[in-house]
């Protein structure tokens, strides 16, 4: 695949945090690619490193984080031409190179709309800030742009809402404002970190429809971080399942849902209550708890909770195997297939 098709290419990303003079590895040799104009869903339970992975790419982590990678390549497509950016070479997380990219090229929507807006600024000014910063546009012109975007995102009565403060908005409307901030500079790649976890289901449906719209009609590439398997099934083109900082399964939506291969993904899909379960049917559970990332033993991280665990699973680093084209699974059950990076 060439740079035209791939918008983000991550190879062997490692992130660790220094805590109490101890190094705790949170993200371990993660590799994935995001195809242009598609949605990649990153799923996993809390603490599996899905948010840290994306924050490592965007360089949003604190000073106690250590990020290293073989390659974090962002391919911008401007007027039919590809420009490559190698994010891993940028020394400073807040240097001019990163700041130039955040906003016009890649941007992020955060989980909690209640706390990602500044309560003492009008929402219109908060949305316009990025535009003024990046394009040097005048305030008046920027305001017009913001109004236009508000209309597109379905914020009712934008002319009066633009001068409101965040507390005057409901949760769903705040999340639309946050999406507007991410969208205002017209980025190609939008990373959404659990955009609807704090919202009600009916509002979640509205926001998801909006994101789907942006992807289909404007060709945006979306990375959707979530723990809701239902949302994945509805939104994703490709799925990346993470457990304890590693990608355990990666593949197309059909690969992951119809040919579910990793024991963790299987268990995860079966433990979700779905509507219309038969009477008296009991949910399957995953025994045990997710281990503490600070005291990881060797071998497969899922070994203690896995029904198919063997002696071999407890030693060394488990490689990933490609069981079908583009479908990789980190599990020794599939060791007859070719080993791949990731």
């Amino acid at each position: 695949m060439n740079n035209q098709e791939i918008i983000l290419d991550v190879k062997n990303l490692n992130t660790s945090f220094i805590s109490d003079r101890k190094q705790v590895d949170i993200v371990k040799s993660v590799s994935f690619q995001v195809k242009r104009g598609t949605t990649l869903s990153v799923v996993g339970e809390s603490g599996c490193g899905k948010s840290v992975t994306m924050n490592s790419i965007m360089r949003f982590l604190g000073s106690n984080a250590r990020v290293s990678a073989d390659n974090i390549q962002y391919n911008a497509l401007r007027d039919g031409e590809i420009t490559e950016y190698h994010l891993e070479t940028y020394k400073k997380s807040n240097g001019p190179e990163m700041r130039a990219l955040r906003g016009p090229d890649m941007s992020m929507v955060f989980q909690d709309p209640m706390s990602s807006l500044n309560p003492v600024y009008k929402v219109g000014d908060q949305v316009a800030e990025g535009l003024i910063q990046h394009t040097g546009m005048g305030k008046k012109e920027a305001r017009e742009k913001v109004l236009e975007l508000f209309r597109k995102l379905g914020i009712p009565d934008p002319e009066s809402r633009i001068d409101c403060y965040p507390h005057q908005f409901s949760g769903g409307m705040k999340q639309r404002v946050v999406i507007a901030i991410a969208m205002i500079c017209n980025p190609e790649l939008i990373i959404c970190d659990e955009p609807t976890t704090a919202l009600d289901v009916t509002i979640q449906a509205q926001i998801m429809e909006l994101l789907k719209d942006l992807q289909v009609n404007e060709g945006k590439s979306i990375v959707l971080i979530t723990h809701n398997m239902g949302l994945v099934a509805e939104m994703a083109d490709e799925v990346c399942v993470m457990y304890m900082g590693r990608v355990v399964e990666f593949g197309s939506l059909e690969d992951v849902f119809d040919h579910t291969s990793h024991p963790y993904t299987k268990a995860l899909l079966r433990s979700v209550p779905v509507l219309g379960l038969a009477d008296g049917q009991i949910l399957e559970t995953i025994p045990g708890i997710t281990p503490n990332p600070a005291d990881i033993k060797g071998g497969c991280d899922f070994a203690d909770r896995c029904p198919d665990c063997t002696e071999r699973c407890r030693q060394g680093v488990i490689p990933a195997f490609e069981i079908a084209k583009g479908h990789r699974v980190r599990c020794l059950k599939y060791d007859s297939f070719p080993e791949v990076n990731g």
Partner: protein
Amino acid sequence: MSENKEVIFRIKNLKTWFPITKGAFKKVVGNVKAVDGVGLDIYKGETLGIVGESGCGKSTFGKTVMMLEKPTDGQVEFNFGGEFKDITKFTKDEMFEFRKKVQMVFQDPYSALNPQKKIYTSFEEPLKVHGVKTEAEREKIMQQVLKMVNIQPDYLMRYPHEFSGGQRQRLCIARALEVMPEVLICDEPVSALDVSIQAQVLNLMKYIQRDMKLTYLFIAHDLSVVQYMADRIMVMYLGKVVEVADSKALYEKPMHPYTKALLSAIPVPDIHTTKKRQILEGEVPSPINKPAGCAFHNRCPQCMEICKTKDPDMIRDQGGEHMVACHLYSGGKDQ
């Protein structure tokens, strides 16, 4: 459900309003009508699921049934061994007895256990209060309830921070079970937990219910979780009940437009179902200035003229088990 349906709670026209005051004299200028005229019977041994979006009054309803919130109007009658007593008029002593019968599990297991006290101390307190005199007896009960929730008895000497979220929620359930209650009110017991842990806790709650013949009031915003747990489901919108039905009937044949929309908004983890999404416009109106007529009319896809002026009454279908408050089904039509 159980054939001989014995009623344990009889709730009539329950209202919990929070006054909004203004000025130095605290003049009441309005009311937040969190629970606004809920009437319902709760049967012994059943699980009644309560669903609705945030702000619909489901938690306030649970708290009012437990008398943690004083109702503005209406009655809650509790079955004390065959005799119904109105708990809204209880004295302190009567309330004490009532609390032994009805216990609550809260949403956030991280804040429901005192971080400075050992589990032992937290567990001992309700037993002391409710008159288990000797230490040996208290310990026996503690061991018993811990066994029920699959936590090793020697963990009693630990502090809450040493437990994971799922374990903490199990501890909270165990503590509620100590006084051998008849009813357990669970306010979003699994929404703070991960999916794999959520399933553990849900199954555990099912087993405990079977063993202790408990009645559950299961409050949650996740319809699929409620459908898994509940025998009957009550759907709330802006403080009012819009539909009550057997959980299977509600899923297979929802009647109220709001229930239909709520069901269709749930993302299904199956890539082969092609579901026609029905997306609701707008948001839940404020419970202070409720719209006139049916509270749902401004978002309802099937809104009629009458909906804008007249609040619909609760209609029962033939069996009397499926109740819905919607004008679509009034006017003599038998659904």
